[in-house]
């Protein structure tokens, strides 16, 4: 006989809320990539404005999770899942914040000074960041441990591009200092999105196995 059905339904509802949040965040990363590639500053402003939506999601997920822990005293897999849902909400919010950082960094950039290789490299990072975020959410949704563990390997690609900027700027010396600094920062923001996806994978591992990093 299934007991505590009400509680498990509430956990399922919270889970659905987190997945909705996840799809909003993936979309935000994709829009951020497009905003950079098209150098669309209107889209940038929209992304900054829309960040409140993600913040509200995080707040709702955390408040509900907190309340369920206080009132339902979950244990074992239920406890791990609730804690991980709350952690994931934080990471997703952080990913959206990094998108905001990208958009704000673009404000004072001059499109004329962005050479093609920069645009392509940032685009590559954006594509990879979207993939990583999607994989992070999917491994959580489908409880796929192998997919969770694979995130770290996937993240290496984004790290490599990030390191490339330092090398290129040092060797070519073409760009002015401010542009170079801003591009390195933007590159770093995308790289941090990947790191957050890797963290999500580690939490998923904890949720599924009870071992590893919480």
């Amino acid at each position: 006989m299934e007991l505590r059905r009400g509680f498990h339904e509430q956990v399922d509802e919270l889970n659905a809320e987190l997945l909705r949040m996840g799809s909003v965040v993936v979309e935000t990363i994709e829009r951020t990539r497009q905003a950079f590639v098209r150098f669309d500053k209107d889209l940038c402003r929209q992304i900054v404005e829309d960040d409140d939506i993600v913040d509200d999601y995080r707040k709702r997920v955390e408040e509900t999770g907190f309340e369920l822990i206080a009132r339902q005293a979950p244990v074992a897999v239920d406890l791990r899942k609730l804690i991980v849902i709350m952690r994931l909400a934080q990471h997703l919010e952080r990913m959206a914040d990094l998108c905001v950082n990208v958009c704000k960094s673009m404000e004072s950039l001059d499109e004329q000074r962005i050479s093609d290789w920069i645009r392509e490299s940032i685009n590559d990072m954006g594509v990879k960041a979207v993939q990583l975020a999607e994989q992070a959410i999917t491994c959580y949704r489908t409880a796929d441990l192998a997919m969770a563990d694979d995130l770290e390997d996937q993240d290496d690609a984004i790290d490599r591009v990030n390191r490339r900027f330092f090398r290129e700027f040092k060797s070519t010396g073409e760009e002015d200092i401010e542009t170079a600094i801003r591009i390195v920062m933007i590159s770093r923001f995308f790289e941090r999105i990947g790191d957050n996806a890797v963290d999500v994978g580690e939490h998923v591992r904890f949720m599924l196995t009870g071992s590893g990093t919480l």
Partner: protein
Amino acid sequence: MQTDVEGKSVAARPLATPEPQHGRYMISIRDLDLFYGDFKALEDINVDVEHNRITAFIGPSGCGKSSVLRSINRLNDLVKGARVEGQVFLDGEDIYGHGYDVVELRKRVGMVFQRPNPFPKSIYDNVAYGPRIFGVRDRAELDQVVEESLVRAALWDEVKGKLKQSAIALSGGQQQRLCIARVLAVEPEGILLDEPCAALDPIATQRIEDLLQELKKTYTIVIVTHNMQQAARLSDYTAFFMIENQGDPGRIVEFGPTNTIFTTPEDERTERYITGRFG
């Protein structure tokens, strides 16, 4: 690798270790089967109860938790048709062995039941009952034992002015602490408690839990509880019992540090039970 209650890594304890380790464990149950007539109520029970720790037995009703508890001080001897196979070691000695002194056993391991069951006597006489049976006659000595036992049971301050009053007039929670004091008066090593808080309100329950935490410094405690949160709050080790199908004997599905049982149980059946997916 699991960790014990102090966080040290220990090898996962198999349910059936061939040789009980008497140093660390006060009670070691080995391959215990229990029959009521033809009905096999328990099968293959193996538990080690560590000194100065609280060990909890949890599981659905009718799965044999209380039967195991009762077998530790041979209360099942009193049930017609009950028969035990296997061994229960108390500090290395099999209590079902030939010639084992059952009175001495019940002095060393006391029992507290679900419903407080004070004798219809004064508070004083309830606590003095055991020592008197064991031959203590000296008034001053009895006074001292009664006071010490009531202090240890965290009841002294509430009853010190009315020791001659009837125990029946006490509240349920006070009666239960009196029953614990009555056990303590004969200086046991272990205390067995069979759902001691089932008839108590939450505050009285909390008092008993606080008391047990204090008592484990001196005594070894085994508690049967239906309240899983109580097991989680209170115990150092937890054994999860269940019956697979109607009519099957009760078995232990998983036994380990309470921390492990309530965060990452190894057996799916344990997980399903403690998270309320079956009961």
